[in-house]
């Protein structure tokens, strides 16, 4: 089986700070990957490099056959980045819904503005995806009238409406009250079951343990563990992984 995401030799600096150090990995279609690690280890930056929200300094990213090398410029290069972004959908920690549009408006914005889809067709698709995240009845609500969990589900529907091949989740539940986390994880579980390829930066160890096919453990800009959850949780190879998992499990008790 060929990989749907290929990250090769990725390096990223913030000024003189080396935040991603020679990262390479592959993701198979329908694979669910959770990226975990201490804060500041570069997890979010890695995720944001995959759709070029952050420009990597060296290396290359390929998603569904669209390959972009770091450090290009010009119109053709921008078009390539655009093509790459169309292969991915992204969900942010702080939702980032457009506050001046309704839930449906948010979901159809991509199809209408980016793909040039007629409003009527987009509305059908938008309604379908809102239904899918359990918010069919909230179509006409503005984000300010929705709870955090509902906003994040609309954000997921917005990403799905572009029909991406890979979904990127950047700490999707970190900004939510504990009682609202479940509804977002429920939608993500549904996506896992449908065979969506997913890369998730998360602190939700329960979700990770149950649904991740593979875990990338990051520390100081490097992937130091790359394996199935059982192996990583029960038998971590690296000392730092043990310390991190120890701290997390103590928190959970």
């Amino acid at each position, binding site marked *: 089986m060929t990989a749907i995401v290929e990250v090769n030799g990725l390096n990223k600096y913030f000024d003189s700070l080396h935040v991603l150090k020679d990262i390479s990995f592959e993701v198979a279609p329908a694979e669910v990957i959770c990226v975990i690690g201490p804060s500041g280890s570069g997890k979010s930056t890695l995720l944001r490099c995959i759709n070029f929200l952050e420009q990597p300094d060296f290396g290359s990213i390929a998603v569904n056959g669209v390959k972009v090398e770091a450090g290009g410029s010009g119109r053709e290069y921008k078009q390539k980045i655009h093509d790459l972004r169309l292969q991915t959908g*992204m969900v*942010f920690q*702080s939702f980032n819904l*457009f506050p*001046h549009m309704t839930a449906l408006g948010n979901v159809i914005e991509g199809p209408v503005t980016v793909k040039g889809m007629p409003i009527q067709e987009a509305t059908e698709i938008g309604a379908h995806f809102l239904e899918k995240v359990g918010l069919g009845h909230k179509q006409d609500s503005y984000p300010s009238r929705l709870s955090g969990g509902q906003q994040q589900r609309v954000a997921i529907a917005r*990403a799905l409406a572009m029909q991406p091949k890979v979904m990127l989740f950047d700490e999707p539940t970190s900004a939510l009250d504990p009682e609202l986390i479940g509804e977002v994880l429920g939608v993500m579980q549904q996506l896992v079951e449908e065979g969506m390829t997913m890369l998730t930066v998360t602190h939700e160890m329960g979700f990770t343990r149950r649904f991740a096919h593979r875990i990338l453990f990051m520390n100081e800009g490097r992937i130091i563990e790359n394996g199935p959850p059982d192996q990583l949780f029960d038998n971590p190879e690296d000392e730092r992984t043990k310390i991190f998992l120890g701290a997390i499990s103590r928190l959970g008790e």
Partner: protein
Amino acid sequence: MTQTTTELQSQADQIQSLKRRKQQRFRLGVNLSYAVLFLLLIYAFSGIKFNLFGLQFSTISLDTAFIAENWYFIFNGVWLTILLSVLSIALATVLSLLGGLGRLSKYPPAYALATFYISLIRGTPLLLQIIFFFLALPQLGIRLTGLWAGVLALGLNYGAYMTEIMRAGIQAVDIGQREAALAIGMNQGQIMRRVVLPQALRLVIPPIGNQFIAMLKDTSLISVTGFVWELLWRSQKVGRANFRSLEALLIAAVFYWIITILFSIVQANIEERLARGVRTT
């Protein structure tokens, strides 16, 4: 012993009503003071003579016959004053939007043009600009009526100052909004048009309202062209003709003041409504 909920409730009510009474007393005091100030103002222009410590004093006396005869002529300038302000603020809003985008542009000529425009306009007096458009342009074969010379000058001038408002408004839109738009594949133009500007314009409505109120009074500068029959021009005309400039200018001042108060109330309402609409998550 613990207090029951009803006891706690009545305690909260007491604190509430105490607070409210304090506020009411303050409002009452302020309103009474306004009334006193207003009466003093009227008294100062009443023309009444009085004796203090054996000295003869007199308040300012106004020619009421002149006022009765001419206030309506001056009042008719209100419409033109408002029209000038509306046209100028419309031009200024468009220019400041372009200026703000220019100031944020990564395209060197756009940035340079916007910066040059702001520097030039802010570096020269508004009055000079108005006279320039009216008197200097005809030498180049461009003849503008006083009204359009005034609107052009005021619009260009306020546009330069408002550029910073627009720039701040655009920058105040959360960076996450751009990122979300990029992530669904929107390009820079689409992001500006569909995501950033609709939110930025909402933010700049209150400060633009302030500029409009300031502009209402700066339209009086256009009177120097001599061909725009707005408030100040009208009051100067009848004042000079009858040697009653004191009365004539006071009438114009009162009208400026009233329009400003009225538009300030409108402005406060808009601001309140916008504040209610925008709820942060």
